[in-house]
């Protein structure tokens, strides 16, 4: 269980106080897949960094598994948007995925098994010995996803992970994430600015306003669990939900 309660974040820059997050509260049940969507500049990344314990909130609380977040919590992994910068360029693919496990003091045999499995599950079984910068953007992001999988988190946060890859790769990665989530039963919070993506991926869409950010609407996505890029996206219910989210985001933009 992940809860965000009355979270507020202000920045002081050059004597000017910027209210990035006004008041955000929501909770995510164990094993749930929630997408957070909002207009650009609405503090999505700030929110995610607060949940991840990378940024202390100005006020309010985040709890992961009943424990208050004051630093990066145990059992929580993050996949960042900038895949090129979140992988270690001096480590090969295998070592990149292995490093967090090694830092945790896991025995070698177990590490090898988990890393091999994780890389297989993102179809990178052949790329163990490559350096990240020898791979395409989509493959690099798959390495980052494999690292998160091998880490066996209970909560997985993803910060616009597919914003920088091309449309075709993006569709593949979306389906990959769906299958990973269903297989691992992990609690997943997926931040995106892409409305279609937010409806296609999750079980719920949390819509944020422009700064000072608050939750505009918390919408349940009642699409069947089996999703398909073509079939799901052409369902009337998908179009309806998509329209709903779109309208809310537009409204939120104009109000600010």
């Amino acid at each position, binding site marked *: 269980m992940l809860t965000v309660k009355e979270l507020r974040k202000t920045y002081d820059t050059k004597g000017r106080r910027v209210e990035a997050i006004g008041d955000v509260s929501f909770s995510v049940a164990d094993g749930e897949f929630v997408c957070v969507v909002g207009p650009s500049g609405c503090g999505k990344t700030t929110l995610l960094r607060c949940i991840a*314990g*990378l940024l202390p909130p100005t006020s309010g609380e985040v709890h992961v598994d009943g424990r208050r977040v004051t630093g990066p919590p*145990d059992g929580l992994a993050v996949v960042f948007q900038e895949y090129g910068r979140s992988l270690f*360029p*001096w480590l090969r693919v295998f070592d990149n995925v292995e490093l*967090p496990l*090694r830092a945790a003091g896991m025995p070698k045999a177990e590490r090898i098994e988990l890393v091999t499995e994780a890389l297989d599950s993102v179809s990178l079984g052949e790329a163990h010995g490559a350096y990240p*910068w020898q791979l395409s953007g989509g493959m690099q992001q798959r390495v980052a996803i494999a690292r998160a999988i091998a880490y066996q988190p209970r909560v997985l946060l993803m910060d616009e992970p597919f914003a920088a890859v091309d449309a075709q790769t993006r569709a593949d990665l979306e389906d990959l994430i769906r299958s990973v989530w269903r297989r691992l039963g992990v609690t997943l919070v997926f931040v995106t600015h892409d409305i279609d993506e937010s409806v296609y991926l999750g079980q719920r869409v949390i819509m944020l306003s422009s700064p000072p950010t608050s939750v505009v609407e918390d919408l349940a996505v009642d699409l069947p669990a089996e999703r398909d890029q073509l079939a799901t996206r052409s369902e009337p219910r998908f179009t309806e939900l998509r329209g709903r989210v779109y309208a809310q985001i537009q409204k939120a933009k104009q109000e600010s």
Partner: protein
Amino acid sequence: MIVLRRVGLAIGLPVVLVAIWWFASAGSTEFYFPPLSKIVGAFPATWFGERMVDDVLPSLLRLAIGYLAALVAGIGLGIPIGANQTLRAVVEPLFEFLRAIPPPVLVPILMLVAGIGATMKILVIISGCVWPVLLNTVAGVRAVDEVLTDTCASYRIRGGSRVWHLMIRSASPQIVAGARQALSIGIILMVISEMFAASSGIGFTVIQFKDGFRIPQMWTGVILLGLLGVLLASLFRLAERHVLGWYHGIRAAEKER
């Protein structure tokens, strides 16, 4: 073919210059500028005997110890200073002062403190070599990528693992650049430290030849130092290729795109 061309380019100019020197000095009767043939003739007898063990190796050993100590100290101090803004504010003015002092003027002071033995000579080498390593390490650690820092934090990569995989490896291109500068400074200081109150070493020997008016032998010492410089630079390049393979790989990949 490519290798042949590269070797040709690398040694072409030295070969031409040596040839010019050889022929221009061939009939020289000037005492201070003997013919190159005479210098080359004196080289083996001068260095490939006792002096190799008594002078060349001790010099190189002191250089190695001083240089490695400077690397360890420069990186070891550079990491906490680079990572901590307050610490940086405290020590940076002091560093500006200290690194502006030319290490040779420290020789008399170090002699008072450490005597005239090997310790003094090693300290002179350290005092010159540490700055480029230290300042480059600080700059490198300061520039560690934020996303990578966040990645380490959220995957709980901490302690020694974090220092090595995040800080040192991130800063390694800068550290290597500093180490390269330090190497040439080290060679200079190795010689200078042996010119005062010494009883062995390449620098000491060269000064002795000069004072004894053994001019061809003096010239062989100069050539030996040049050759050692080339040798050490090649060894450095080998080490760099090993340590920064990833870095050169990225740069080559970027160029292709």
